[in-house]
């Protein structure tokens, strides 16, 4: 059986200290929760990588190619000769291409954000409302046997309180 333990901190440096100690003790399933983005998390928990940029790039490429094709195919399907100008001209269609590049790039970034941040999440997850106000929290998922050890590490690092939560 696994346990979910949350430590509540008043100070950000205590939180990072707790995270460092937990990491050093071999716990991997560590989440930090805070009302603002914290600097220095990567130093403690290791660098983070995300697939977000790939989503953005993929969306932008699809948008660019798709936008140009949309303009070009519309012109080919409904040929509208104007003076001696080409049916598929580059300069105006590049503007359409640019706009659709941004449009799909933005939408893909949004999807990438949801995908890589595990959102939306409608089920209850370990969390306390104080973390959006003025408290910092660490959540550790561990075996029941290791729960006491986790609680002790959290309290030693200055936790105001430690809670076991059900998910």
């Amino acid at each position: 059986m696994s346990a979910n333990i949350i430590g509540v901190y008043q100070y950000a440096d205590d939180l990072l200290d707790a995270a460092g100690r937990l990491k050093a003790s071999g716990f991997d399933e560590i989440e930090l929760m805070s009302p603002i983005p914290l600097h220095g998390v990567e130093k403690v928990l290791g660098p983070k990588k995300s697939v977000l940029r790939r989503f953005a790039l993929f969306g932008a490429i699809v948008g660019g190619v798709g936008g140009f094709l949309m303009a070009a195919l519309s012109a080919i399907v409904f040929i509208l000769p104007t003076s001696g100008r080409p049916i598929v001209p580059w300069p105006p269609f590049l503007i359409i291409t640019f706009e659709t590049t941004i449009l799909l790039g933005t939408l893909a970034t949004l999807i990438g954000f949801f995908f890589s941040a595990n959102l939306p999440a409608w089920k209850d997850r370990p969390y306390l409302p104080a973390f959006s106000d003025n408290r910092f929290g660490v959540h550790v998922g561990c075996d029941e046997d290791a729960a006491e050890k986790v609680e002790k590490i959290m309290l030693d690092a200055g936790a105001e309180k430690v809670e076991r939560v059900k998910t």
Partner: protein
Amino acid sequence: MSERGQPSYQEVNDAVLPTMTTFTWRYWTALSISVTVMIFGFFAPWWYQLFVGVGAAGMSRAAYWGTYLGNFIFWIGLSHSGTLLSAVLHITQSDWRKSIYRSAEAMTLFSLITAAFYVMVHLGRLWFVHWTVPIPNVMGLWPNFRSPLMFDVMAITTYLTASSIFIYMGSVPDFATVRDNATGLRRKIYAIMCFGWRGTDREWHRLGWAYTFFAVLVIPLAVSVHSIVSWDFALSIVPGLHHTIFAPYFVCGAIFSGTAGIVTVMYFLRKYFHFERYITEKHFNNLGKLLLLLSLIWSYINMLELFTGWFSGSSFEIEALRFKLFGFYAPLFWEMIAFCAFLPLVLFSEKIRTNFRLMLWISIAINIGMFTERFLIVATTQPRKFLPDAFSFYMPSLVEIAITIGSFAVFTTLFLVFVKVFPSMSMYEVKETLNLPTRKGART
């Protein structure tokens, strides 16, 4: 209050959250007036125009474009306040942006919606709007993507989408704060709106990246949007419009009027939501400097536009110029110059830049000037096209005047609803500007 004179995290929440739930008589009065004006000033005349035809507007032969398109440029211009400025300041890591950007981005969104309404009003036969979408229709027609009007459709759709995403994603952590401080149905609604945000290190990391990507994508987009709007005019061969300077002229004018719009909104937010501790002299001072710079650039481009018209030696251009500078609408032209070129020069004085009330009046005057500029672009050019037998005169009809007034009510209504749904100041970003609570800091 913390010991360093800064507000605490809790105080930031306490300053913002009540603004969403407190409904004063002032708010209800403002909302009632704006909804009434919106219905009777905007939607009723529009309905009338749809019913009797676009002839209800003052447009006629030679002057096919009127106030609707002038207003369209104005609202698109105003939309350049928020998202563009917010994105630029985000990329350049300007912390002072954090307490004002949410409202500025909302301005962008609502200005764009108002502008999009104008496209539909101008269209006349609204029920054919789907013809701008590349799908086969009953006539077998496909849109002509070589036309700047189609550039417009794409640009505005993209800008509206990107701006909506930009403001919404920036608000997600704050929606979580609202959820955590609400009860009952309101809590459930905000729980959905924040997508289950918990503020984990992973979520902040991804949001930071996504937000930066949005900002990077939005900056060239915003520039392209108003350039494209300018090409609606500049790609025609109408004297007075056919200038290569139009794209930078429009973009500069857009940021100019948008920044003035931010100052106006900031003044009211500060005053009525009591954000005195968060929207300070520094914000007005910085925006004042920006307004001054933009005014100087705008004046330079304006002079350049007049000069190239005169220097062309083309009698058509010179007639268009003469009509603009000395014709029927000349008083409006000189009013524009006074409000947008000369008045902002007072912003050289720091005393004026940090005087809230003076800044409010200057910002309003600038936007009156910019509104006039957009009106003159359509009202003084098309009626002076080439040969004198094609000359005409454009005067807005009552329907156009009503819709113009009504559009301000559309914007105000949307904004008044916004301040009760979104936290009008970004709580988490304001908290970021404060000292991080640390044990080391608490000891000193």
